[in-house]
C-alpha cells in the first residue's frame, strides 16, 4: 500500500509503521478467528469423513495452546506500545502523534485479552466432548 513515488525518509517509515499498527490491532482477533475456523472446519471434516477424532482433538488442543501463546506474544507487544507505566497516561485522549501511538497499543492490548478469552471458550468443547455424537 506504500505509494512508491514518494521519497522514503524517516518520517515515512514511522508512518508506515503506524499504518501497519492499525492492522496490528486486529492481530489477536485474527488469531482467534483462524483458531475458530480451523477447529470447526477440521472437526466437521473429521466427523463427516470418519477420521480419528481422538487424534484430531489432541492436535487441536496443542494448536489451542499455540494460539494462546501467539496471543500472549501479541498482547505483550501491545502492552509495551501502550506503556502506561512509564507515561502514566491510561487514556491517551490528546491529539499528538505519541498519543495515537500509545492508543493503538492500548486497543490492541484489550483486543488481545478478549481474543485470549475467546480461544479458551472455543477450546472448551475440545476438552469436554470426546466424540462426534
Amino acid at each position, binding site marked *: 500500500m506504500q505509494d512508491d513515488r514518494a521519497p522514503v525518509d524517516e518520517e515515512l517509515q514511522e508512518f508506515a509503521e503506524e499504518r501497519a499498527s492499525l492492522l496490528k490491532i486486529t492481530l489477536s*482477533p485474527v488469531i482467534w478467528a483462524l483458531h475458530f475456523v480451523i477447529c470447526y472446519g477440521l472437526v466437521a471434516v473429521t466427523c463427516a469423513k470418519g477420521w480419528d477424532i481422538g487424534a484430531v482433538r489432541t492436535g487441536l488442543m496443542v494448536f489451542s495452546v499455540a494460539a494462546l501463546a501467539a496471543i500472549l506474544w501479541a498482547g505483550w507487544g501491545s502492552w509495551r506500545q501502550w506503556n502506561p507505566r512509564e507515561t502514566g497516561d491510561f487514556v491517551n485522549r490528546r*491529539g499528538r502523534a505519541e498519543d495515537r501511538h500509545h492508543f493503538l497499543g492500548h486497543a490492541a492490548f*484489550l483486543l488481545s485479552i478478549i481474543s485470549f478469552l475467546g480461544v479458551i471458550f472455543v477450546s472448551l468443547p475440545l476438552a469436554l466432548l470426546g466424540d462426534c455424537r
Partner: protein
Amino acid sequence: MTRSTETTLPAAQGQYPPTEDMLSEPVPAAERAAQEARLRRAWATPRGLRYLTAVNNTEVGKWYTMTALVFMLLAGIMALIIRTQLAVPENDLVSADRFNQLFTLHGSAMMFLFAVPMFEAISILLLPGLLGARDMPFPRLSAFGYWCFLIGGVFVISSILFDVAPRAGWFMYPPLATQDEGPGSDIWLLGLSFIEVASIAAAVELIVGTLKCRPPGMRVNIMPLYAWYVLVVGGMILFAFPPLIAGDFLFELERSFDWPFFDPTRGGDPMLWQHLFWIFGHPEVYIIFLPSIAIAAMIIPTVARRPIVGYSWIVLSAVGTGFLSFGLWVHHMFTTGLPSISLGFFSAASEAVVIPTGIQIFAFLATLMVGRVKMTLPMLWIAGALAIFTMGGLTGVMLALAPFDFQAHDTYFIVAHLHYTLFGGMVFPVIAGVYYFFPFFQKKLLSERLGRWAFWLIFCGFNLTFLPMHLTGLWGMPRRVYTYPTGLGWDGLNMISTVGAFIIAAGFAVFVWDLIRPKRRQPQIPRNPWDAGTLEWTHDVPEEAWGVRSIPHVTTRYPLWDQPEMQARMDAGRYYLPDASEETRETLVTSVIDAEPIQVQRVTGPTWITLLAAGFTGGAFIFPTFSWYPAAIVSGALAVCCILYWLWTSTARPPQVDTKDAGLGLRLPTYASGPASVGWWGMWITMLGDATAFASLIFGFFFYWTSQADFPPPGSPHAEAALVALAAGCLTISWALTVGARWLNRQTRVGAARLCLILAPLAAAGGATALMSSVWPLDPTAHVYPAVLWALSIWNAVHAGAGVIMQFYCLAGSLFGKLTPRYDADIWNVSLYWHFHVLAVLVTCAVMGLAPGVF
C-alpha cells in the same frame, strides 16, 4: 527513482500543522463574503424536478432515512395484521397462505428494507458532519445506492398487494423455498440481491469516507466513536453480505434453470444454504446493532457533560464484537443434527460475544455515573434501549446453550428474544438518534411532550407484547402458525400481545406525527441545542448546503468543548478549503492514520445519470423474476453504458492545475492515483467483498465434498483439463499485460502501453471462452458436481468480461487524453481489479482441474 520528472505528481507544500498565529489572523470581511457566495453557488441544491438529481449527502441521506421509515411502517402494519389474526384462537381473518406472506415479508422488510439501510442512511446523513467534511468521497455512489434501494424495496414490498409475496420465511430455507410455486421466492432473491449490492456500495463509501475524509489532525485516537463503529460495520458488511449474494446466485440458478445445488436427490444439500444464509444472517444482527449503539456513544457523553469513559474499551468492544459475531452462525442451526462438538464451538463463541457487548454497556453506565446527567428526551430513549437490550441479551445467553435451544427452537420464545434484541439494540437507539440529531439535519426541534408520549407508549406496548411471548413460547406455541386451537393456555397471552402491539402502533403514530407535522412557526433553534462537544454541531443555522464553511484543524476528541475558538474560525473561513475558486465541489482528503492533508479532491455534483443507472440495474434484476431474460440483458447492458458514461465524464479527469491553495499556507495536489487516491481504496474495498463472495462459492464446493461420500461422483465427467489450463494461462497473460501497461504508461512509453491494452482483452476473452468450453459438455442439471463447475466458470467468465470492459476503458482513456503517464488513476484501479481476478481464476482452475485427480 528512475522515472522522468514529468510523470511525478507534486506533493503537499507549505506549513502543516498550522501555527496559532496563522489561525488567529482575521479574514477580511469582503473576502469572506466573496468566498461564501462562491461556495453557495458550487453547493447549490437543485430546485424543481431537478431536485431529484441531487447527490449531496444531506439530500440523499434524508431520502434514504424517510424511505426506510416508510418501509418500516409498512412492515409494522403487516405485524399488526399478524397480531390481529393471532388475537383469538381459530381466527379466520387471513388465510394460511396470506399469513405466510405476511410474516415472511414482515421479517424480510424489517431486516433488508429498514434495519440495514437505516444504518447506511443515518451514516450518509451524519458522517460528513461528524468528520467536518463537505461531503462523502463518492456522492454519486450514495445516490446510486439510494435509487437502487428505492426501486428494489418498492418491488419487493408491493408484491404482497398482488398476492405473490415470498412466503417461505425470511430465511428462505430450501427445499420449501426452492420448490415453492409462483414468483414469490424469485422476488425475494432478486429484489434483495439488488438491495445487497446497494448495501455494499454504501459500505465502500462509508469506509473510504472514514479513512480518507477526516479533518486535518483528527488522528485515529481522537475520531468520534461513531466513526469507529462505521469502520467496523463497513468491514463486517464486506464479509457478511457476499456469502448471501453467492447463496442467492446458486439459489436463483436452481429456481430458474433447475441446477440442483440444494436438491439432495441429485447430490445437492439444503444445509449449504443454511450455512451461507447464517454466515450472513448472524453478523447482520451486529451490523444492525453496532451502529445503533454508536448513536448511544454519541448521546451519552453529551447528556453526562463529560468525555466518554473508556474510549479504548469501546473501540475494543466494537472491533471484538465485529470479529466474534462471525463465529456464531451455527447457533441458528442447533437443531439440524450437526455433531455436538461442532455445536459446542458455536455455543462457546456465542457466550464469549457477551463479554465485549457487556463492556460497552458498562462503559456507558460508567460515563453516566461519573457525569452530571441531564435527562433529556434522547437520553430517555437510550435508557429504554439499554433496559430492553439487556433483557434480550440475557435470553440470548440462555439460547446460546444448545440444550436449551433444542427446547425453545422455533417457538415464540425466539420471537420474544429477537424482538428484545432488535428493539433494544436498534429501534430505541435509532429513535433516540432521531430526537438528538433532528436539529442537525432539519434545523428544527421535535416536541418534548410528544416525544415522552411516544416513548412511554412504545416502551409499555413493547413489553406488553413481547414479555408474555416468552411464556407463550415456553408453553409450546410454535412460530409461523396462522392459527391455534383453544385450550392450550395460549389464548390470554396472545390477546395481551395483540393489545400491546396496538399500543406500540399508537406510539409510532405519535412519533411519526411529530416528525412530519409542519414546523414553520417554530423559532430559529440554537446552533448546539444539547451543548454537545462533537463537530457536527458546528452546522450552519439556517441551513447551508456546503457542509462546513471551512474544514477545521482538530486536535481533541470533543473539539467544541476543548477548542473554544474553533467555531468562530470555521465560520470566518480561517481553516482549510474556505473557498471554491472555480465554483466546483471539493473536499479534503487526508491520510489514513494521522489525517494529514494530502489532496484536494473534486467531488461530483447533481446528475440524472445515477437515476438512469439505478433504473437499468433494477431492470437487470427485476426482469428475470418473470423470466424475461432478453429484457434483463438489454437492461443490464444499458446500466453498464450509464455507469461507464458516469465514470468517464466525472471521475479521475486530468485537472487543469496540479496544485491548489487549500488555505492556511498549504498547497495540495488536485490529483492522485494508486493508493493515495480515494478511487483506489474504493476499488480495493469493493474487491474485498467480491473476493468474499467468490470464497463462499469455493466453500460450497468443499462443503459438498465434506458432506457427501461420493463427491465428485464416480464416473462423472470432469471439466476438460487442457482447456482449464489454457484458461488459467490466457487470463494470467491478460493480467500481466494490464500490469505491464500500467508500468509502460508511467515510463511514458504510451504506444507500448496501448499495445498491451489491445492484447490484454483478447487474451482475457480467449481465457473466458476456454473456461466456458471446458464445462460445456457437462450437464449442470444432472448432478451438483457439474452444476458447481458451471457456476464457478460463469462467475469467472463474467468477471473476465468486466475486466475486458475496464481494459478497453483504459485504452480509450489513453487515446482520448483522459489517461496519461502523469494522470493514470484509472489504470491503477483496473490493475488492482485484475490482481483480485487473476487470483480467483487461479484458485478456480486449480479446483476444477485438480479435483478429479485429488478426490
